[in-house]
């Protein structure tokens, strides 16, 4: 009869949470408000500057150019990423190969392309291979290396393939050996184990590094402007050299920031989506 629960509130009386404590003005809070205020001031200043500097003739002249530059940038990144992904598979395979010599070659390739600046690699391919012009002409390859766009694609593909190979290798290594053993115990052939058991798990691990690599490539793609490819950065530099108007660079900054943020959010979404089965 004596059901003990005497501390429970009567049903007709709402349980009120204690009122929130007033947040004191600590030093951290003051500093935080001050810095956020500075940021706001900066953004407001930027917006006012861009509003005042708005000239319809400039927009009409350079707007379409920025658009074509943006398309060039996106095309470069997309092509290099896809080709690099294709090339990274044999590189990663040789890196993991038991054959010492093949492994050493793959290691040297990866070390070279990860250890030197992308700009130097691009110069080496675009200007450097020009030194072998007679030879290339003889082989009928000169038409390819004459064009800055092709050279940029080649340099970016080779560069990103080295990074992607390491991502792939790390991801495959991260799948526990037990997965291989379990699948072997079920009598699955090696190729099926790799494709159906290991790769799906590896790709989940690799997803985030892949996203970072694409963002790095997008940011790195700005350097093709130096070898006269008119991507977004190239168009920006051209517009600046004609108008000496600083807003050209600010618009480029806004566009790049939007691109990177879009990519980042897209990647967050993909990751949430393909790891649904892991959420508890």
């Amino acid at each position, binding site marked *: 009869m004596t059901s003990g629960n005497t501390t429970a509130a009567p049903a007709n009386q709402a349980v009120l949470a204690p009122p929130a404590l007033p947040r004191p003005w600590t030093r*951290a809070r003051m500093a935080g408000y001050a810095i956020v205020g500075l940021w706001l001031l900066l953004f407001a200043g930027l917006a006012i500057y861009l509003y005042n500097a708005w000239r319809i003739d400039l927009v009409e002249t350079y707007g379409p150019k920025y658009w074509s530059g943006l398309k060039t940038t996106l095309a470069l990144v997309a092509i290099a990423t896809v080709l690099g992904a294709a090339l990274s598979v044999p590189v990663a395979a040789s890196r993991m190969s038991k054959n010492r010599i093949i492994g050493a070659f793959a290691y040297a390739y990866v070390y070279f392309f990860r250890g*030197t600046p992308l*700009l130097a690699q691009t110069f080496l391919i675009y200007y450097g291979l020009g030194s072998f012009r007679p030879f290339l002409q003889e082989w009928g390859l000169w038409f390819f290396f004459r064009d800055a766009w092709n050279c940029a694609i080649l340099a970016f593909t080779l560069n990103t393939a080295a990074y992607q190979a390491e991502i792939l290798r790390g991801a495959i290594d991260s799948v526990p050996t037990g997965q291989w053993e379990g699948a072997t115990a079920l009598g699955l052939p090696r190729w099926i184990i790799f494709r159906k058991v290991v790769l799906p798990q590896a790709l989940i691990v690799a997803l985030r590094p892949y996203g970072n690599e694409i963002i790095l490539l997008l940011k790195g793609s700005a350097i093709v402007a130096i070898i006269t490819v008119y991507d977004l950065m190239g168009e920006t530099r051209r517009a600046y050299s004609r108008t000496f108007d600083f807003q050209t660079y600010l618009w480029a900054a806004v566009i790049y920031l939007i691109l*990177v943020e879009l990519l980042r959010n897209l990647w967050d979404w993909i990751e949430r989506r393909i790891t649904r089965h892991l959420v508890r």
Partner: protein
Amino acid sequence: MEHYAALLSFGEGGWGKSIASGVLVTVSLALATLPFGLLIGFFVALGKQSKEPSLRLAANIYTTIFRGLPELLTIFLIYFGAQIGFQKAVAILGIDARIEINSFTAGMLALGVVFSSYASEVFLSAFRAIPIGQYEGAYAVGLSNGLTMRKIILPQLVRIALPGLANLWMVLLKDTSLISVIGIADILRQTGVAARVTKEAFLFFGTACLLYLILAIISSFFINRIEDWAHQSQDRVRARV
């Protein structure tokens, strides 16, 4: 072969000297950027792990911007932007003067802000790896906040953050090549000049790549030494137990 050796030699008609000065510029730019980038990165990380939401917001805006912009664009923004900004500021004061920002300083600032925004992420994850018991223990023995940070947290933080920071140093070393576009005579610019004059582009840009590789190898030697140093207190404790 002799022709190439002569081109790279330090003597008459060789480009060795100017390339060596380029190496010096690259290394000194990277070294000058490092302390500045580390310091800002540390404070941004402090802001990001603060309990105060406004500080977190301010720090996150910083990293979002400087991790999102291409490094090359950041360099241009700071090089031209700071020049125009200073000019405007001086004009408000009523002085009409042409101000030129030293391109070395501009490059250092640009590389520094990029480095610091990445470094802040490294520091942040290192902060999160330190158990809260360390803070509680320090509080229990009566250390002040500053002393806790200096004597308890920082030594562990350095050890945990070191691999990430070493990676960033390698990235910084490679990013210095970008400042050749604002006219700093670094490795890539010096070899580029040599390539244009001698028409031996492959030789000189190949040399540039090799020099960057050598710098990376030298760096990893020193990084290993620093890691040994950072781990020695742990090793001592382990040896005693």
